[in-house]
């Protein structure tokens, strides 16, 4: 039996064959006793596995999980744990340096503006705590709408819509307190895109990579 024959059998099992291909493979299998036996053995083995189905956890499982949950809000504890002990990957290049410089310059500019012009500023700027104005951008000429979600808005995909210019560059200006923020862009409400200019990326431990920015004074 050739490896190609085995491959055809697995494609048959996976339902990957078009009707005419399927018919041809079935004919071939029926005409070849070794191939036929291979198919029967495979399908019988898979059948007994599939018949096992799911098994449920023991009684009271849900209650035990719920009792084990932390009583305090997880957000703060998780954020602190991530900040203190979370792994950080720094990737420096010219784009990174430029992005960091942009954040720092914007931060300094915001502080100077707050200090020199506080009396005349519009109430739209938060003045309760030091605030850094961060500008995020994503080039997506074909997108119809782009938003940014992250830890600063509890991953709300609708709260911070970005504005598009004529060249297809989407921007958002966010007044943020100093801190570390994970974020992603959401293109057309469904596609989550990392920031190609993000100074840092962070794996959440389960295969997803969030963009991360450090906003400082």
């Amino acid at each position, binding site marked *: 039996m050739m490896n190609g024959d085995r491959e055809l059998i*697995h494609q048959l099992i996976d339902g990957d064959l078009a009707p005419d291909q399927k018919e041809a493979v079935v004919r071939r299998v029926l005409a070849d006793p070794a191939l036929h036996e291979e198919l029967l053995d495979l399908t019988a083995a898979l059948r007994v596995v599939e018949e096992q189905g799911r098994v449920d956890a023991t009684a009271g*499982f849900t209650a035990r999980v719920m009792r084990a949950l932390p009583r305090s809000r*997880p957000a703060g504890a998780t954020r602190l744990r991530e900040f203190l002990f979370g792994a950080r990957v720094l990737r420096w290049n010219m784009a990174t340096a430029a992005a960091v410089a942009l954040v720092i310059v914007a931060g300094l500019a915001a502080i100077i503006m707050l200090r020199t012009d506080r009396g005349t500023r519009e109430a739209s700027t938060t003045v309760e705590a030091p605030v850094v104005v961060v500008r995020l951008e994503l080039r997506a000429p074909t997108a119809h709408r782009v938003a940014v979600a992250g830890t600063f808005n509890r*991953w709300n995909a609708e709260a911070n819509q970005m504005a598009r210019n004529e060249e297809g560059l989407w921007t958002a200006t966010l007044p943020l307190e100093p801190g570390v923020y994970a974020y*992603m862009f959401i293109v057309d409400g469904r596609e989550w895109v990392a920031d190609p200019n993000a100074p840092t990326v962070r794996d*959440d431990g389960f295969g997803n990579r*969030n963009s991360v920015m450090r906003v400082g004074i």
Partner: protein
Amino acid sequence: MDDALHSEERSVITDCINGDSDRYGVLVDRYRSMVYTLAYRMLGNTDAANDIAQESFLSAFLALREFGFRSKFSSWLASIVLNKCRDALRARRDTVPVDDLESVLPGKERSPEDRASARETGDIVQRALAQLPESYREIIILKHIEELDYREIAEVIGGSITGLKVRAHRARELLKDLLKERVVP
């Protein structure tokens, strides 16, 4: 994914992030069977499976802020379970030696009645799964017990669809050899 389910889960997760941890019970009830099955089929031990299942739900709860709704919650949760199973298996390397397996599996001389025993078949299947390399075991469980398609499997364990199919094909061949003449008529 079903939009209504997705929307409800999004609402539950958002509530949990905002401090309403009681709402998490909805997700635990919904996915406890999936989580426990993955853990049990990977580890082959009910106590260990219970512990891993519970730890997985707790880890997922603590990481909800990082979830980001970029995949199905069930896929994300399954990836957490499998990560924990891999860690547990690495820690104790508790796969059943082949000799041990041979002593447990019924031989060719056993009667058809014995082979028909559902419990015995379950034991045989579980021991055959334990003999598979972990990556093969994972894909057999996800494909043939959880009945995920390859796109969903890729969400859970990563990799290309083509690569996953090749892995599934090899896993099935090995599984077939392990089960042949024991449960296969």
